[in-house]
């Protein structure tokens, strides 16, 4: 047997994808909005929709939470897929080849990539400059970086 809350949660990735496409198609100006931020907003809106549907259908609280968590987990996976298309250098090199983007515009220039990331992090207010020094704001990204470095040491000790 499969519970209705699992079915609702399973529908979330399709809702995320459709919503993501619709948002860009209906509001082309959003192409200038930070793309990762928009993807996160779409995922969170989808989770709210999923929870709303579960509540509307009169599901008990644990089932509503289950549908919401499934939606978040699958949304997180979608975010990584989108992020690969946005920032992964390997993917960029492959896409540049199939899309026949000239080498100089293909964007895997190291300085450009570093510059793009710094601009994005400043735009998101995650990094700031004081007395000529770049500082980082404490928050989920700092914790995630420590977690990932710990993870790396666990799996790649050398």
């Amino acid at each position, binding site marked *: 047997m499969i519970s209705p809350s699992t079915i609702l949660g399973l529908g979330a990735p399709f809702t995320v994808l459709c919503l993501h496409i619709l948002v860009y198609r209906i509001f082309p100006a959003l192409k200038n909005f930070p793309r990762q931020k928009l993807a996160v907003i779409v995922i969170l809106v989808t989770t709210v929709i999923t929870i709303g549907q579960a509540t509307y259908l009169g599901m008990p609280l644990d089932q509503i939470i*289950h549908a919401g968590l499934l939606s978040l987990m699958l949304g997180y996976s979608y975010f990584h897929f989108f992020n690969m298309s946005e920032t992964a250098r390997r993917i960029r090199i*492959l*896409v540049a080849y199939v899309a026949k983007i000239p080498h100089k515009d293909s964007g895997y220039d190291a300085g450009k990539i570093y510059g793009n*990331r710094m601009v994005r992090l400043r735009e998101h207010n995650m990094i700031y400059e004081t007395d000529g020094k770049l500082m980082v704001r404490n928050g989920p990204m700092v914790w*995630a970086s420590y977690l990932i470095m710990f993870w790396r040491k666990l799996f790649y000790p050398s």
Partner: protein
Amino acid sequence: MWQLYAETLLIFLACLIIQVILWRLLRRPDDVVPYQIVILFLLFWLIPVIYSLAFLSWDRMILSLALGSTYIMSFPAASAKSPTVMIFYILHRSGGLTPKELESRLATELDLKGDRMKDLQADGLYTGSGKPSLAGQILGYTFWTYRRILGIPLGEG
């Protein structure tokens, strides 16, 4: 429902411990990312699915697959020394650096272009003759099509 979550988490942790042991004992330096990802799928998808089949529970299976997916999707970013992650880690540990110092620290930690071309060749996604293999082209077309469906240009890296 909470028992389902507890069991799913326990199975996930067991798979994680198996992965640590496998990576430490059996992983060779020349193991490529696609090979590692196949192992991850076997561990974090197949084991929970077999366990779920024993209970004939779709809820258990789908929850395990969703949890496994979150981990597998995080793996390439974590194992590839993402520049963004390195920026946060280096800046927080050092307590602040000038832009030049940060750039130089990153340059020693990451080879932003060379690494990826070598990785692509090692992964079988790029041939020695300077063009993607069939698998690389399929991957490239998949992401290119995805971006075109969304209607946004290629990411800036």
